[in-house]
C-alpha cells in the first residue's frame, strides 16, 4: 500500500484516494465536503515569504504609532495598542489585558515569525533547526490571532467616539488595516502540507 496516495478526512475519517489536481485546485472529502488538500502554485513558498516579511514590518509600524487621537475641550489624548493594553492592566482588568495582548500582538507576531522561519529554512534547503516545532506551533495558534477582529473593533469605537469628541485616525489604524490584509494573504498562500512534504524530503 502506498500511503502517499491516500489521504484521510480529518472531519469524518473517510479514506480518500489522492488525485492529481489542476494548479490552484482544491480537493474536498467525497463524503462530508471538508477541505482535504490543494495544489498551490509553484512559487507559493516565495510568495508567502514575501507577504509574511512585509506583514512583520507593518506589525512594528502598527505597534509603534498611535491608533487614534481624541480631542475633548482642547485636551488631546492618543493611544497605541500597547498603551491600551497597559491601561487595561492599570484598571486591574488583568485577564482582559492578557487576552488582548495575546490575540493582537503576541500570537500574530509569533505566527508570522514562525512562517518566515520555516520558509527560509526550506529555501536554504537545510532541515533548519526547529522547523518542525514551528509548523506545529503555527497549526496550534492559528485560531488565536485576531487582527481582523481587532480592526473592526477599532472602527466601531471610532464611530462611538465621534459622538462625544473630535477623533483623528492615527497611522497605526491604517497600518493595522493593511496588516489584516497581508496576514490574510499570507495565510491563503502558505501551504503547510507542502512544507511538511518538503521537510520530509530534506531529511
Amino acid at each position, binding site marked *: 500500500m502506498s500511503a502517499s496516495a491516500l489521504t484521510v478526512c480529518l472531519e469524518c475519517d473517510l479514506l480518500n484516494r489522492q488525485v492529481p489536481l489542476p494548479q490552484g485546485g482544491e480537493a474536498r472529502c467525497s463524503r462530508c465536503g471538508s477541505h482535504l488538500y490543494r495544489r498551490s502554485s509553484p512559487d507559493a513558498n516565495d510568495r508567502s515569504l514575501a507577504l509574511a516579511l512585509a506583514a512583520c514590518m507593518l506589525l512594528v509600524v502598527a505597534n509603534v504609532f498611535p491608533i487614534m487621537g481624541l480631542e475633548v475641550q482642547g485636551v488631546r489624548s492618543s493611544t497605541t495598542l500597547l498603551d491600551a493594553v497597559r491601561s487595561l492592566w492599570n484598571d486591574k*482588568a488583568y485577564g482582559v489585558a492578557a487576552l488582548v495582548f495575546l490575540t493582537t500582538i503576541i500570537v500574530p507576531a509569533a505566527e508570522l515569525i514562525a512562517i518566515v522561519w520555516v520558509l527560509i529554512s526550506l529555501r536554504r534547503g537545510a532541515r533548519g533547526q526547529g522547523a518542525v516545532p514551528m509548523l506545529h506551533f503555527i497549526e496550534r495558534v492559528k485560531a488565536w490571532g485576531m487582527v481582523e477582529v481587532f480592526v473592526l473593533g477599532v472602527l466601531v469605537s471610532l464611530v462611538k467616539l465621534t459622538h462625544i469628541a473630535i477623533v483623528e485616525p492615527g497611522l497605526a489604524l491604517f497600518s493595522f488595516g493593511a496588516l489584516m490584509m497581508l496576514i490574510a494573504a499570507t495565510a491563503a498562500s502558505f501551504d503547510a502540507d507542502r512544507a511538511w512534504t518538503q521537510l520530509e524530503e530534506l531529511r
Partner: protein
Amino acid sequence: MSTAPTAVGLGLLACEVCRLVSRAPPPGNDAHCPRCGVTLHARKPASLARTWAFLIASMILYAPANFLPIMDTSSLFGTQSDTILSGVAFLWTSGSWVLAALVFFASIMVPLTKVIALAVLAASVQMRATWHPRTRTRLYRLIASAGRWSMLDIYVVTILVALVQISTLASIHVGPGAAAFGAVVVLTMFAAESFDPRLIWDILGEEP
C-alpha cells in the same frame, strides 16, 4: 448503506497536524506520527466530556457577561454603566444601524448560537442520531470559524478605556462584565476545539 472505508476501520491513523496517514500500532502502545512526532489519536481524547465541561462553564458565565456592565463611564453628570446590549442600543439610537447590527450579531448572536449549536451536536452524538451528518459537519465547521468575531466588544472596550481616561470631561473604566464576556468567548472556542466531528460519522458506520 454500505460501510464507507474509514481510517479507523482499516487500522490507520491520520495525523491531525501534518495529515500523514500511518498504520496504527498494536493496542496499548502510544502512537506517534512518523513524520512530525505528535501523539496520534483515532479520535480526540474525551471529546464529549471536554466539550460539555467547556460548554457548561461558558453557560454559567453567560449571564454575568450579558448583565454586568462591560464598562463604566464617569463624567460631571454622574456615572453610567454599559452592558453589551446597551452598547448596541447606543449605536442603534445614534443612527449607526449597520454597526449596531454588526455588533449585535458578533456579540450576542454568535456566542448564543455557538453554545446552542455545540450542545445540539454533542447531544446528537450521544443520542446516536443519524440525521443529516453532512449538514451537522458543516454546522460544526461554521461555528468553529465564526467564534473569534465575538471578541469584537472586548477590543471596543480596550480602545475606549485607553482613550477616555485622562480627559477632564469623562473617564471610562472596564466593568466586571468584560472579564466574564472574554471568558465566554475563550471557553466556547475551547469547546469547539474539543468536539470531534468524526463522532457524527462513527454512528453511521456502526449500523448493521
